[in-house]
């Protein structure tokens, strides 16, 4: 990999030509171990990485364990209710102090030599006199290690392994306001509906990232899903308008974040009614939309109710506010493999019938058993497999819509904003 030329237009991996309106990404960026090393060092160790939602640990002493950016973490609430993220490793000899997925406990105990910790991370074992000096833990060497930075926005908690990183809100840039459009859908708060879908994909992580806000592939890859909607009475309100420049758009949200926004062709529990849900649900969904308008004004209220947003927060958080809300994060295990965690988010006070439709919508479209995700995964794995041809056919094209002043949701502007930031961060690692 030729790494000496760095900067716009001279990157070895991203070639943007404003005059020719072309944007190309090297396929080697999806396959090389050296690239993944650079990504770990310059992206995953320095950016704000999503760890979990506050509703997943609602009570004092709740905890869960999770792999985040290549680490094993404990995400928990202590006895006072404060939120923590610890590295899941015993300060003594390094065994994991929690090996289960979730629970509620006053503390953690390593089973190897029995070191115990309060759930605020403090060492809690009484050591017999004479084995260690009395001030052994004065510097905290026997406490659990907390992640260097932990901050939240509207219930979404993020960690950062770079102590000197900018604050979360500054990092989120315009994406913070899009998170607000999700968080404001309930006056009593949003919650992750019990359970995490966890699955592996044999593809580079950036392929799933691109796919998560790619409006262009919808009609071809998901032909059967749209056939399904069209053939299920009362499931669609209008055609999919991804290519309509007046009603849909692809947006750069700053710092590599981006989204597409477009009118929902399907029902949205918040808040676009479809006939399939029946007349009883109609009054409720319409009341929900009126309430949003009352709280936030007509423009923002209708936007929250009727527009879909597929958003990627750099580098690996997807919040898709579509027929249900999916929160999805993923991390590369090798250049050709990624691990996915996916959840669905819903209003806490949602009526049982709407919750049922929401889950129905989610499972119908998303996850390994959904109508769409298997086809997406098939495409991603197909790309990854074919990147073995990259010596002779080395470049992906991401130029769609470059000539437009206002790109639509089926253009690729939002992906270009990701790649520019990716390239900038990797270039920073190569430059002297």
């Amino acid at each position, binding site marked *: 990999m030729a790494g000496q030329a760095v900067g716009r237009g001279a990157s070895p991996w991203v070639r943007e030509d404003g005059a020719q309106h072309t944007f190309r990404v090297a396929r080697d960026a999806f396959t090389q171990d050296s690239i993944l090393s650079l990504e770990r060092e310059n992206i995953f160790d320095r950016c704000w990485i999503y760890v979990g939602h506050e509703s997943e640990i609602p009570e004092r002493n709740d905890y869960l364990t999770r792999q985040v950016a290549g680490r094993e973490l404990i995400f928990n609430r202590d006895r006072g209710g404060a939120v923590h993220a610890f590295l899941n490793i015993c300060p003594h000899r390094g065994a994991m102090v929690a*090996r*289960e*997925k*979730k*629970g509620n406990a006053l503390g953690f105990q390593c089973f190897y030599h029995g070191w115990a910790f309060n759930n605020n991370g403090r060492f809690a074992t009484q050591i017999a006199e004479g084995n260690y000096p009395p001030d052994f833990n004065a510097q905290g060497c026997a406490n659990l290690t907390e992640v260097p930075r932990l901050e939240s926005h509207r219930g979404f908690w993020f960690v950062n392994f770079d102590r000197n990183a900018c604050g979360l809100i500054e990092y989120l840039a315009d994406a913070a306001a899009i998170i607000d459009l999700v968080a404001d859908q309930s006056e009593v708060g949003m919650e992750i*509906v*019990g*359970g*995490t*879908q*966890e*699955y*592996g*994909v*044999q593809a580079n992580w950036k392929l799933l990232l691109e796919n998560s806000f790619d409006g262009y592939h919808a009609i071809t*890859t998901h*032909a*059967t*899903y749209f*056939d*399904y909607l069209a*053939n*299920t009475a009362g499931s669609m309100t209008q055609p999919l308008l991804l290519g309509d420049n007046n009603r849909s758009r692809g947006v750069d949200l700053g710092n590599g974040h981006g989204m597409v926004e477009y009118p929902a062709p399907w029902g949205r529990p918040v808040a676009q009614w479809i006939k399939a849900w029946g007349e009883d649900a109609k009054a409720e969904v319409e009341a929900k939309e009126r309430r949003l308008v009352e709280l936030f004004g007509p423009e923002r209220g209708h936007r929250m109710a009727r527009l879909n947003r597929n958003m990627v927060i750099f580098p690996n958080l997807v919040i898709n506010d579509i027929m249900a809300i999916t929160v999805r994060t993923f991390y590369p295990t090798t250049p050709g493999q990624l*691990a996915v965690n996916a*959840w*669905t988010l819903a209003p806490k006070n949602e009526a049982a019938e709407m*919750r*049922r439709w929401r*889950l*129905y919508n*989610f*499972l*119908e479209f998303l*996850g*390994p*058993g959904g*109508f769409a*995700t*298997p*086809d997406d*995964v*098939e*495409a991603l*794995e197909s790309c990854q497999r074919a990147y073995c041809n990259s010596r002779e056919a080395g470049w992906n094209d991401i130029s769609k819509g470059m000539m437009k002043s206002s790109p639509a949701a089926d253009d690729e502007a939002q992906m270009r904003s990701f790649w520019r930031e990716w390239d900038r961060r990797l270039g920073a690692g190569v430059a002297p």
Partner: protein
Amino acid sequence: MEQTVEAAKADSWPATPIPERMALQYEVEQFLYAEAALLDGRKFRDWYALLASDIHYWMPIRRTVTSDNLDMEFTQPGDMAYFDDDLTILDMRLKKQEAGSSWAEEPPSRSRHFVGNVRILKVAGDEVTVEVAFYIYRSRLNSDVDTWVGRREDVLRRHGDSFQIARRHIFLDQTVIQSANFSTFF
């Protein structure tokens, strides 16, 4: 959700005379083998005809918990799941495959369903609750191989001289799904 040994004992079925139990066991096993053959033979519409109109086809999410938290091991109805289907969705799944643009099954995969450890847990009226262990092998394209192992709890309902499947609850022996998709029926 998990049929307990106690519940099975409370039922009169285990006290039924052996010849009668053997006959039903045989009937149930032959039905399950024939059903598996339909899936592996890609006769999906024939398989669909075996489903009752009120079928609940459900696969909850499983996660690693400590032994004192085993009640949290599986997600519950109303929580997240991998499948939570009624007959309409199962019909749409078939229509999706039949469309020829269901890319995870085009070209189609090759599967083999092994059904074993067949235990009749309960007989109530015209319904038989059956627990089976399953092992499913699937190969796709040139060399992609997936296997799924787990436990199924089926409710088979008398239908003429055969059965219909009125419930299929699928409990995988995996927490993180290792396969690219679940485009195969369980």
